[in-house]
């Protein structure tokens, strides 16, 4: 079985797992869910580091650094703003 097929298996199963977990998130938390998911999609930073590290030439280096910067906005900004929101949900 090739890498692509293994990747597809993983992709489909992860989608189903995500569906199961996220369907049960109450509507009250849908905005933090979205910004949190947004932070998770900042995982592209992993790809950006790999690309930047093996960059060959100026254009690739610039693209790699730009990708790292944008993914970091997602990661730092996403997790921080989600935390800020969730801290507001209090029970009195």
């Amino acid at each position, binding site marked *: 079985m090739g890498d692509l097929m293994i990747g597809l298996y*993983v*992709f489909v199963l*992860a*989608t189903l*797992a*995500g*569906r199961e*977990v*996220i369907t049960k*998130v109450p*509507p*009250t*938390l*849908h*905005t933090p*869910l*979205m*910004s949190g*998911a*947004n*932070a*998770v*999609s*900042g*995982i*592209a930073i*992993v*790809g950006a*580091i*790999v*690309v*930047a590290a*093996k*960059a*060959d030439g100026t*254009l*690739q280096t610039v693209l*790699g*650094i730009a*990708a*790292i*910067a*944008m*993914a*970091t*906005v*997602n990661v*730092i*900004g*996403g997790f*921080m703003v*989600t*935390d*800020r*929101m969730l801290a*507001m*949900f*209090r*029970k*009195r």
Partner: protein
Amino acid sequence: MDTMVEVIYLLSATLFVVGLKRLQSPATARAGNAIAAFAMFLAIVATVVDTEILTWSGILIGVAIGGLVGGITARRVEMTDMPQLVGIFNGFGGAASALVAVAEFLGTPTIGVGTTGVTILIGTAIGGVTFTGSFLAFAKLQGLMTGDPITFPGQNILNALLFLGVLAVGAMTLGAFGGQDPLTMFYVFCGLAMLMGVLLVIPIGGADMPVVISLLNSYSGLAASAAGFVIGNMVLIISGALVGASGLILTQLMCKGMNRSLANVAFGGFGGSANVDRSQIGKRPVKRADAEAVALELGYVNSVVVVPGYGLAVAQAQHELRKVGDLLEERGVDVKYAVHPVAGRMPGHMNVLLAEADVSYDKLYDLEEVNDDFSNTDVVLIVGANDVVNPAARDPESIIAGMPILNVDKARRVIVMKRSLSPGFAGIDNDLFYMDNTLMFFGDAKEQMSELVREVRDLP
């Protein structure tokens, strides 16, 4: 060493799922977010260990800039502006994923027809669409351009042609037809993908924006997954899939909340200015009440359900509303807040605004949880909501037929706090305003709620 790195990636992917699972309750959600952040940290550490990094300077500069921008934005953003924030963050995520694919292509421009090439093109296309689509959505929500749908004749035909063009140029990039310069074709491909993102978002506007934001959220995940296929990294594939699933679920819920299909949202050009006869709107007589009368209605009953709409957030009257609720509770009134799925500008937006105003989360009720309670409710207080409480949704002839609504007209007394009798996004009149048991409480939500706070406080 390789196995060690893979194990850390696996742990990271697992913790993402565990973190998301904690979002199932407000009590555990904050810890869940922290777990997900830790999972991200692990994945980054594993990558840095695994990758032979020759020059750190570029990477550190990227992280410093991104961290600064993200951190400052996250601290400063107003809760009312969350839709824009999520919109632009989606765009950054999509762009980052696209750039990973682009950089891979530039490493081997004569890649030829094969799975690697196709994967790179898919990653570039999804990322590119997410990038421009999200920035356009941001511009619409931020008011940098009109928020209304922009439609023109032949739009759908143009979209179809563009899609075919993307496929053709993609094939040329991989050298399927021979003769074309792959690099030139690839740049054309990138341009067309970004144009697709623009055309995806311009015909959508007004009340449909939550659907677009959710959909682009899903795309940003799929873009990350595609980047994972490009560089052969499982943690990217898994995390991207989780986000893709999340965005898709929210998209479906938003469509359901408006009783419209995704295709209808994407191609319908609804929202903003619908062609409805508005000449009769506001011509019928209504019963009016001032703050004093409203306070008397609210202060001596057993149960009050508050229905907040986006007008409340626009007027920044959440805090005053919460004070009214607190005072009523001190008088022994049972107060609940009923939140419609599309009450804000993104899924769950209204709940965040009420949480910010210090409303306890166990008093926030969803449509399904609360809808059967209205017949046992003494007074419903609607603040700045319109279409989501319009009984016309039960009329099969209406433009909003079948849209799930809060059954507020079943309550013994309905008080509607609104600026005027003007229609909501659907552009139609609301029979609720003219019912026998309805009182209209006109004015600016913030001023009138402050007035109401004083009147309720002064009740004997």
